[in-house]
């Protein structure tokens, strides 16, 4: 192969590689906000070994997340097994309480080992105070679908307190609640990266939907209260879909008064073009996408304008284009009228002014 050919091939392939690298920039950053030493959480005192493992899992997982959804879930299964072994072997001061903790860890481990394809299962280990009497009564559970609540009684809490008294200089006389909160703070950071990544993606999606709504209220036809109610009713199946949705594709109108400029060909010269009012009896408007490929709407309309020698009231159809311009036709007995919205007239006037400006420049050029 000629050297020049090899050089060209190398150049092309390196360009492709650079492009791929640029295009495959990570979408999730394993930065300090999700992998720092303690994730900012309160210091763990009694279960530092658990915390260490949870942080290791979180950090490892974090670095894999840019391969999402092809992230191996095995590390979660391993973490579940670790929790069962490490936490279940801790003595909490009484056999029954130890047994309940072991049961909770089995539930945790079971969930971590049984992963689904749509989203990883990463439940919390929860400790909740029963704050009725402020006496540090509490319960603990795992946030899986299946119900599980473990409520240590007063004796168990006292024995637990005794068991952990003097173990740590940092907290020499902890309540049993504090011991369990320590365990909670040790375990739960394992999921921080994953939750942050998922929430970031969801936030982006919701932001796009919110932006659609903003756009709708900016550019769609302004509605009256009646229009709002009618549209909400007719588009209710869209709004009630069971998830967050963007604006409906269509707007609906009824009994809607508008300002128009009417041209009536039956009126005397000089009186043919007059401002008036129209009432849209019923109509619709595709404000964005439509079967025609551009925003359009149609209404059945009656128009009223003060013109001499003609039937001032006529009924016909109105076409709305691009949410701004309205052009319509109405029948007044044997005469026809046409009407436009004030916006369209302004648009035409602006265009006319522009045309006149160019025309005069052109004419000056030839003078």
């Amino acid at each position, binding site marked *: 192969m000629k050297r020049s050919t090899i050089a060209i091939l190398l150049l092309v392939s390196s360009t492709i590689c650079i492009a791929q690298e640029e295009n495959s920039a990570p979408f999730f950053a394993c930065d300090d*906000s999700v992998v*720092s030493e303690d994730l*900012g959480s309160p210091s763990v005192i009694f279960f530092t070994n658990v915390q260490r493992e949870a942080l290791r899992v979180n950090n490892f997982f974090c670095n894999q997340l840019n391969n999402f959804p092809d992230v191996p879930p095995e590390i979660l299964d391993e973490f579940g097994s670790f929790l069962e072994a490490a936490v279940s072997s801790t003595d909490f001061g009484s056999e029954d309480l130890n047994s309940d903790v072991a049961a909770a860890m089995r539930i945790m481990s079971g969930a971590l080992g049984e992963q689904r394809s749509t*989203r990883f*299962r*990463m*439940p*919390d280990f929860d400790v*909740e*105070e029963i704050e009725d*009497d*402020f006496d*540090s009564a509490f*319960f603990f*559970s795992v*946030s*899986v679908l*299946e*119900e*599980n*609540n473990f409520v240590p009684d007063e004796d168990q809490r006292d024995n637990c307190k005794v068991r952990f008294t003097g173990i740590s200089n940092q907290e020499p006389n902890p*309540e049993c609640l*504090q011991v369990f909160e320590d365990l909670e703070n040790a375990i739960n950071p394992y*999921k*921080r990266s994953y*939750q*942050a990544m998922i*929430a*970031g*993606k*969801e*936030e982006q999606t*919701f*932001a796009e939907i*919110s932006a659609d*709504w903003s756009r709708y*209220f900016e550019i769609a036809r*302004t509605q*009256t*209260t009646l229009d*709002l109610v009618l*549209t*909400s009713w007719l*588009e*209710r199946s869209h*709004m*009630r879909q069971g*998830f*967050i*949705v963007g*604006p409906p594709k269509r707007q609906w109108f009824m009994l809607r*008064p*508008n*300002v128009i400029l009417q041209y009536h060909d039956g009126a005397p010269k000089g009186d043919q073009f007059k401002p*008036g*009012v129209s*009432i849209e009896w019923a109509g619709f408007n595709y404000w964005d996408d439509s079967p025609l490929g551009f925003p359009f709407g149609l209404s059945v309309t009656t128009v*009223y*304008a*003060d013109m001499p020698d003609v039937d001032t009231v006529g009924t016909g159809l109105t076409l709305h284009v691009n949410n701004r311009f309205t052009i319509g036709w109405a029948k007044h007995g044997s005469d026809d009228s046409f009407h436009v919205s004030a916006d369209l007239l302004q648009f035409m006037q602006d265009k006319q002014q522009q045309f006149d400006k160019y025309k005069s420049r052109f004419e000056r050029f030839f003078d």
Partner: protein
Amino acid sequence: MTSTPVVLLIHGMGSATPPDPGNNKLGSFGEEFRDSLDKALQQFSGHETDSIENYVTLDEFYYNDKFDLIRNKMAERANDVRTRLDEVQQLFPGGTFLRRFVDQFNSWEEDFGDDEFLYTHWLDVLFYTTYIGGWIRALLAERIAKLIKDHGSKNIHVVAHSLGTAALHDTLAQIYPPGGEPIPGTPAFFSVENDQLETVWMVSNVSNLINTVVGLADPLAPGSTVKPGHGGCTKRFYNVRHELDPFALIRRFKPKNDGNWISFDNFKLRYRAIKNDVILDPNTHSFPQYICDPNVCLPMLRKLMGSSKFRPGKTERDKFIENHASQGLTGAFGRLEDAFRGIDVGDLETLDEFLRAGEAFKDVILEMREELEGGS
């Protein structure tokens, strides 16, 4: 990122003023919340100069501006039409239905630009029940997602008041699908296993009432995910109402402990129905009055600050409760109760009745306030 808990505040109907996060300033709703809790906290020893903001970050979801935008657009448009209607009025001989209808309707929308109670309060409720509510829910979903991303779901507490309870309920119902599995077409969701919020506080809960119009999700259905515990979107759920708050009476959110909404155990451990009856202000719907009541602020402070940071003894707590009760307006309870008998709020089931009751309630409060001011 910090592990400091965050409290997301969602205001109700009315003219709350916006927060200014760039300058670290709360809006009026956030200030009411902070000031009410601080006032309570500072009555306990060791916390005389303390503030809840030393323990949590307050984040306000402000959506009033969306309603204002729409209100003003409608008013502007109606004004244009009014001008035109006047010019062509000879075309509408007196007494025609159409001119009367258009006049009536149009003049109502023209008034949207005013700051009257109706247009700043009731219109919010009306707007939310139309498709405009979809915009509010999308924005709230975005905010909740951001907070979960930045703080982790276990650090999030949400406090909603009045119309805010409906917005919160409907949003949570739409972003937490049952069983943690999304239905086809779902663009984004959170898992009831992975992403449970720490607490939800519904203050003067109108979600059940508003759902009769919006129809998104029945708050009391067994399949609802807006509930505490397993299969729910939060670990704890506090439903707060004042005994004489008419908005909380109408089509009340009142789950039964029958194993349907949630299990018996979860009902006992994770759900709190808090009922206040002390009246410091004739406006029993008032948010500050709700928050400063010991039935609310004591568990709230404990939950937000943690058991190791807020640990008043029983004597101190009892004294606090007694002090609060002693500030109640003498005779106010009986007076309001009588007034409500006249309004007949007992069996109100519809939004229309809700609005009419609200107007009557407002008149009673204004009257009582005037009497109080006259007597002081």
